[in-house]
């Protein structure tokens, strides 16, 4: 009953015209960001974060979350049409998605990616709604030792997020600790690592570091090479984008698989949508009757990872909102955003800010519907974004980053 009341309250918040607008702006920007290889949600959220300081926090978190899950819808477009993943989680979609496009089934691949994203994304939000409040209630019994353990877990997550080299991950974490300790020590009022500069006494803002690491880092990494890729033809008309009845029947298990695996992996700190999409693809391949055809353009090979990728969003928000632990770069920025607006994500977040939590949950249902509408008939339009020359795109990202800082 609490959940139902909360959800109704959430819809009353999310359906306010201003919040609907921010939800649309978020999912639209997210789709564009997802379509563009080389610009990810962490960079976009970091760049836009300074602009949200003058906004209502509910509208702001609805917009930033929209960018987060909207990018996952858009990420499949380049995987299917160019064999270039828009996001790391869409890497596995390239395998069968691009092969389908080469066989003239780009429309069905794009369509099933949008439908799987919608189904699994909605299931992910449903699970978030059911799991987060009881978990937060349980976490209310935490005292200092549990909080210390949570902080240690948060720092230890660096190892999970690291990839192959634990040594390099730990070194990166230590550099982060060094940057965080620049400025005045709160207990002794000693200045540390300021080199006599007054500007450094108050430390280095998180937003500056976030934009430097995510936005500039991504641009510099992409500008190392001058690469050009070929875009396959995008089918026009809704009819050409809709999968056949047989396609949907073939994807039944993929929808369930993607939804469940995506959410579970999302709740595990350090899991991430990339792991979720690979796991889901692997499971789909293992149980499929036509597993030997995977990699040649099998539609389930698109539906399962895209579903997992989107369901993961709901899962990733569980530890973020109930324990204050981010599991990925994007949720780390969302955590920072909440802190900068004056909130404290953790066990008390839901009871103290029900409008914000339930408004966000309700907006995600609405946002998923918006994304389905945006991504089915309008996918040819979004694909046009790919025709924007990179020599124009990167200076613009640099400019927005500078304005943000």
């Amino acid at each position: 009953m609490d959940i139902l009341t909360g959800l109704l309250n959430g819809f009353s918040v999310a359906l306010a015209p201003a919040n609907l607008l921010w939800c649309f702006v978020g999912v639209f920007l997210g789709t564009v960001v997802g379509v563009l290889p080389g610009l990810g949600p962490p960079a976009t959220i970091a760049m836009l974060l300074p602009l949200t300081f003058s906004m209502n926090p509910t509208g702001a978190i609805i917009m930033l979350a929209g960018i987060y899950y909207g990018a996952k819808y858009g990420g499949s477009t380049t995987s299917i049409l160019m064999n270039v993943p828009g996001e790391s989680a869409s890497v596995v979609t390239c395998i069968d998605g691009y092969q389908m496009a080469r066989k003239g089934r780009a429309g069905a691949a794009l369509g099933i990616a949008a439908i799987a994203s919608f189904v699994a994304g909605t299931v992910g939000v449903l699970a978030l709604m059911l799991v987060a409040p009881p978990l937060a209630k349980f976490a209310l019994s935490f005292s200092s030792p549990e909080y210390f353990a949570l902080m240690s877990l948060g720092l230890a997550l660096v190892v999970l997020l690291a990839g192959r080299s634990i040594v390099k991950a730990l070194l990166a974490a230590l550099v982060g600790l060094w940057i965080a300790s620049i400025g005045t020590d709160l207990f002794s009022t000693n200045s540390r690592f300021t080199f006599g500069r007054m500007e450094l006494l108050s430390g280095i803002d998180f937003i500056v570091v976030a934009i430097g690491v995510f936005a500039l880092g991504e641009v510099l990494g992409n500008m190392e090479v001058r690469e050009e890729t070929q875009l396959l033809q995008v089918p026009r008309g809704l009819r050409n984008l809709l999968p056949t009845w047989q396609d949907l029947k073939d994807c039944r298990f993929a929808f369930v698989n993607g939804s469940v695996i995506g959410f579970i992996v999302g709740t595990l700190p350090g899991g991430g949508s990339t792991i979720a999409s690979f796991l889901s693809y692997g499971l789909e391949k293992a149980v499929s009757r036509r597993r030997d055809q995977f990699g040649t353009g099998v539609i389930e090979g698109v539906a399962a990872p895209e579903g997992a990728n989107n369901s993961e969003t709901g899962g990733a928000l569980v530890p973020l909102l109930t324990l204050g632990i981010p599991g990925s770069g994007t949720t780390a920025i969302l955590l920072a955003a909440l802190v900068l607006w004056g909130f404290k994500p953790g066990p008390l977040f839901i009871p103290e800010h029900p409008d914000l939590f339930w408004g966000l949950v309700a907006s995600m249902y609405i946002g998923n519907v918006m994304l389905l509408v945006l991504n089915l008939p309008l996918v040819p339009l979004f694909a046009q974004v790919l025709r924007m020359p990179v020599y124009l795109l990167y200076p613009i990202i640099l400019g927005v980053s500078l304005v943000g800082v």
Partner: protein
Amino acid sequence: MEDGTRKSGDLWSGIALGGLGATIIVQASHWEYSSPEGPGPGFFPIWYGIAMLALAALLVVSQLRATPGDAKAVDWKRIGRAISVWAALAGSVALFKILGFVLSFALLTYFIVTVLYRRPIRTAAIAAVASAAGFYLVFDWALGLSLPSGMLGF
């Protein structure tokens, strides 16, 4: 030292991070390690400085012991492109006080389009003017965020 190892990016970043770790330890050693109330301002930096130095040493040693094939050589051409963008960006920020955001950003765009992407001068000029004007219109005029202005007043 084998050629492949010498060229490894991990080796050079390990050396740089080792240097940073040593600097942190030296700086932190001048601060109080502990006080009657508990750890002093030097306590935490000393320990993460030591950890950084140790891990950096581990990274360097693992690179020195790696077989030449294991080490990924640095592609200086790619790094050069990234560094030149970074330097151009830093230069444009330094020029904010003199030229203002709009002109500095136009110069940065011009540099990226002509030098890094080898586009014709005309294309670069159009891109620079259009993007700088776009930023001025969106941020300064429409959103009312005052962009840094220079000696020319904009």
